[in-house]
């Protein structure tokens, strides 16, 4: 199967749904099949939130993946809830700013990125998930990097170049954090 499923999960206000849309739109631009779905519901408001994106080369089957290619866990409950779904060899991006605990899985690749801190440094906590997305795409090319950048620019065109620039900066910071050896080593702490 060529389907690759990703879950982005954390607090509301971390920009999860938007980051998911960026990923979906990038896949669309590449002519791939894609499926995007938020965890919807009132309990999500101000509480936890999540978003699933499945990218594939044929129409997507099951909308609820049981074998995740990647998980971006931006707060502690998300890690606890979704870690078991990650397929062996899958990627786990953990928000080092808010998640103290270490993942329990040994058969997945873990990347710790201080997504919240980075987002704040760029100036907006709502960029947290874009940072995570940068880390994800840096490590798993489910979609091309350029397609992601174009998707951000397209989706934010009405918000003006400043916003686009901030999002691209967050994306890139995530990429750098996920590829810098210092950060990578966190996974083994």
């Amino acid at each position, binding site marked *: 199967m060529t389907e690759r499923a990703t879950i982005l999960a954390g607090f509301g206000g971390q920009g999860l749904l938007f980051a998911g849309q960026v990923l979906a739109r990038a896949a669309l631009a590449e002519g791939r099949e894609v499926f995007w779905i938020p965890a919807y519901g*009132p*309990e999500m*408001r*101000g*509480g936890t939130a999540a978003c699933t994106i499945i990218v594939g080369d044929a129409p997507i089957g099951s909308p609820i993946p049981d074998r995740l290619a990647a998980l971006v866990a931006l707060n502690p409950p998300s890690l606890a809830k979704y870690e078991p779904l990650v397929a062996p060899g899958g990627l786990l991006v953990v928000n080092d700013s808010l998640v103290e605990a270490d993942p329990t899985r040994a058969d997945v690749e873990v990347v710790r990125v201080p997504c919240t801190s980075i987002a704040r440094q760029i100036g907006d906590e709502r960029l947290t998930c874009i940072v995570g997305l940068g880390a994800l795409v840096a490590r798993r090319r489910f979609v091309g990097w350029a397609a992601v950048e174009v998707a951000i620019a397209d989706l934010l065109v009405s918000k003006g170049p400043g916003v686009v620039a901030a999002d691209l900066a967050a994306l890139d910071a995530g990429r750098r954090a996920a590829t810098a050896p210092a950060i990578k080593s966190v996974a083994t702490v």
Partner: protein
Amino acid sequence: MTLIRDDRRASRPSTEPAPERLVYRRPDLLSDVSTHYCPGCGHGIVHRLLAEVLGDLGLGPRTIAVAPVGCAVFAYDYLRLDFVEAPHGRAPAVATGVRRVRPDAFVLAYQGDGDLAAIGTAEIVHAAARGEAITVIFVNNGIYGMTGGQMAPTTLLGQRTTSTPGGREARTAGYPLPITEMLALLPGVGYAARGSIADPSSVGKTKAMIRRACEIQVAERAFAIVEVLSTCPIGWGMTPREAARHLVDDVPATYPLGVIVDRFRDPAPAASTPR
């Protein structure tokens, strides 16, 4: 400093001695959990006031409450009271059912404005027409909070919601509904008032209204309703403080604050000029 004195009373349930110098503490009838409400949501304040008043009056153990469908659907998780869930809008009918078979209970219905003033219009009008001895707390935040901020019958003219993206227009979406004024016309309504939770002083006045609405049920076995103008920062697209300001500055022009009728004090209803 009436407010503080009020608070001190609230914090002294008759059963245990007041801790020395305590000015305010979380009322006992509030459960020890966080609510799912958004930051700054008015429901939290109204819940707290209810817990305070029912505590003050010692009504908690006699209360059978009815939860609405709306953001306050989980009220039973937050208030330590017996609760039954009503289908959307039917809380006054459910409360009627309870009332008729539990003559000694204190019967409370909690409803949002979509719940009470839209789908539940018939039920609230007829519970009021019957003079059903229930107390209704009607939280009017001018919007359907739970389903994502659509227009409610109470939405202000011009207000943007997810179902009036260009602002509510009377021509197509109608006028704000002064339902409490309509109810106040009915002889079965012992008490009808409109308060707000916009600032601490309004909160205090609203608490007094809720108290009166509870007393009327107990003492007069009549129908009593308090409409509480409330906020939905998420649905309004505002910060909680902006929302509170809007509630002070803009909402009362459409929904004037005050007691609309108190038939056991003043049998002739206050002349209300509807807009």
